């Protein structure tokens, strides 16, 4: 019977596949630091600490944990690192069950807003918070604050505006200086762009990226003296909001400086990744991408590319920034004192500076950002440091939703011919109805 034979063959194939999957696929979801293998004595407090997998960051975290444990032999920190794609879901699930999970979380500020009103995180002790607030930039605390309390301690100033990657060899070849004004930047982009059929051989100014489109637009609005929010209401549909969006649309439709690849995700490459492959002249992005260019793409900073100041569109050097990475303590932890002790230990100025230098992140504290040791160790941060005071907290909302909706609106205008005014009004409606 042929069907029976088929089933036999199928069963055999499935058994072989299952066996292979069992052998090859039984990896643990999280990479832990092997604390289980070491002896934990009865008088020691064990704290679990959840982070996402990032080789550079994890190495620095391990150093801090080792220093803390050496200074506090009665506390053991058990670090567990999860794949980036699963990290938020893991945090969310662990907090929803009100048990299990970690004592301390490395928490993205953009997520913090979703948890702020749920009481799942422990408020930062008042004395400690007073010290943190005194020296912090405004955006680094924004999402951690709710109803007068703070639920996270910042580890960085997450900046996606004010700097851009520039293709050094191309600038040298064309004997061009890096642009000092917005108009110069666009003129250069127009001159160097080379289209190729439906796509590009070389992009002049590749700004439509997952983050960069929203940050470029909001900075254009703020630097022109406008605002995109009035209290809790989104108000992109102002004359300035519409004019600046029209300008960005024209860079695609009229000037043809780039296309929408960066926000349609078709190639799974962000504009900065295409830049590192030598496919573009200028790309706005945060300074955190510089180590990636060196380590992942084997490029040499100063030879193959540089990170320079990006000119502001308007007269004011203003931009929006969301709250970046920080540390939060689970409200259900059995050891809140030990947990906060670890957070305070990490937040000590010299230690945090060392961490920011090693992870190429901008310090959240003014004193550290302007500490000469920082720019000396990470010279490409210099253009960013000078503009940090112009950073404005982006607002209490889910920033991923805004970025996604701005990208959808941009595609709608470019591809469907929807008028900028209608599209921007629709964006306000969508965001205000979230």
């Amino acid at each position: 019977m042929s069907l029976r034979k088929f089933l036999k063959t199928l069963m055999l194939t499935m058994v072989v596949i299952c066996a292979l999957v069992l052998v090859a696929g039984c990896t643990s979801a999280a990479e832990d630091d092997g604390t289980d293998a070491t002896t934990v004595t009865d008088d020691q407090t064990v704290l679990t600490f959840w982070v996402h997998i990032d080789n550079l960051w994890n190495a620095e975290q391990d150093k801090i944990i080792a220093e803390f444990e050496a200074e506090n032999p009665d506390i053991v920190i058990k670090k567990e690192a999860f794949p980036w794609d699963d990290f938020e879901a893991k945090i969310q699930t662990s907090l929803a069950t009100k048990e299990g999970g970690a004592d301390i979380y490395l928490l993205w500020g953009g997520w913090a807003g979703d948890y702020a009103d749920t009481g799942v995180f422990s408020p930062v002790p008042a004395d400690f918070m007073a010290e943190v607030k005194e020296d912090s930039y405004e955006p680094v605390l924004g999402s951690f604050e709710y109803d007068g309390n703070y639920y996270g301690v910042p580890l960085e100033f997450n900046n996606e505006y004010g700097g851009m990657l520039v293709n050094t060899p191309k600038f040298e070849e064309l004997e061009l200086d890096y642009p000092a004004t917005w108009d110069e930047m666009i003129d250069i982009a127009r001159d160097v762009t080379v289209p190729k059929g439906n796509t590009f051989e070389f992009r002049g100014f590749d700004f439509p990226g997952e983050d960069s489109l929203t940050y470029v637009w909001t900075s254009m609005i703020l630097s022109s003296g406008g605002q995109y929010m009035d209290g809790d209401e989104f108000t992109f549909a102002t004359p300035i909001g519409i004019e600046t969006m029209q300008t960005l649309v024209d860079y695609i439709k009229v000037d043809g400086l780039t296309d929408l690849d960066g926000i349609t995700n078709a190639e799974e490459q962000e504009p900065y990744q295409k830049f590192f492959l030598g496919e573009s002249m200028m790309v706005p992005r945060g300074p955190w991408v510089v180590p990636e260019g060196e380590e992942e793409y084997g490029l040499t900073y100063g030879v193959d590319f540089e990170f320079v100041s990006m000119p502001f569109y308007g007269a004011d050097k203003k931009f929006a920034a969301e709250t970046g990475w920080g540390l939060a303590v689970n409200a259900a932890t059995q050891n809140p004192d030990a947990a906060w002790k670890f957070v305070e230990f990490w937040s000590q100025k010299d230690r945090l500076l060392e961490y920011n230098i090693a992870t190429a992140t901008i310090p959240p504290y003014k004193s550290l950002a302007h500490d000469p040791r920082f720019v000396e160790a990470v010279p490409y941060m210099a253009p960013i440091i000078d503009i940090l005071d112009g950073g404005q907290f982006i607002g209490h909302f889910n920033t991923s939703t805004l970025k996604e909706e701005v990208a959808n609106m941009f595609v709608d205008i470019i591809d469907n011919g929807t008028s900028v005014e209608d599209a921007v009004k629709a964006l306000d409606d969508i965001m205000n109805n979230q």
Partner: protein
Amino acid sequence: MFFVLLPILLLYFTFLVLPIGAGFVMSFFDYNPLRTNNDFVGLANFARLTNDPVFFKALRNTLYFVFATVPLNIIITLIIAQLISSLDWSKLRASFRVLFFMPCIAPLVASSMVWKQLYNVRYGIINSMLEGLFNIQPINWLGTQSLVIPSVILFTLWADMGYNVIIFSAGMDGIPSDFYEAANIDGAGPISRFFNITLPLLGRTFSFVIAMTFISHFQMFAQFQVLATKGGPNNAGTVLTYLIYKTAFQNKNMGYASAIAITLFLLIMIFTIVQQRVNRVDWGY
């Protein structure tokens, strides 16, 4: 006898009935699992559906996907099953069935990832072939609004054909050979035999295949999650299942997500009832 069925009933109740009931209740709340108190909002989540352009876009995309894919799937699998059944050598028939069933064994997420690479604009094999053979400029398959759903349909046809090929093959094998012998004596050719014997006598199989294929296609998620990243450009690849996931787990609005899920549940139920009545078969051979 009841005790023998009890374990499976418990399993069914715990993992199917209970979640559906919980989802139904949740749809009347502004529900966030992280909160201790969640407000009862009555029908507000359902009222919001009527004013949500993304929901209507997702509904339209879902219907487009289902009503394009299912008929194509059935036509193609029927032809393949007929061709396989017409082969004389049983080992060859079994080999072809295995071949067509292979994509069904592979996890949908894994095969979606592979197809995502095939669709890549610059480095994908599809664009390379089109450019090499026909000098067609690279096409942004997954990043163009009008192409994202057709691209997912093409993948789904490839990935999901195997089941129906097997079911149709089994149905064809079950048709008594007397009918074909009589038709041969009457001088009927292969096409005439297919339309006058095979197709009508596959009625029960057809009814089952249509119902199951429609239901499964309404519920498809993995390929949309992988291929139409973040719902595709301007939500052109957003279907109801993806919208439920996004609303529940990204926007953490499980009440509204439950309202969308209940709507999808009702849609599938109504469609299945209608389809079962239309395709009712009350005869046997």
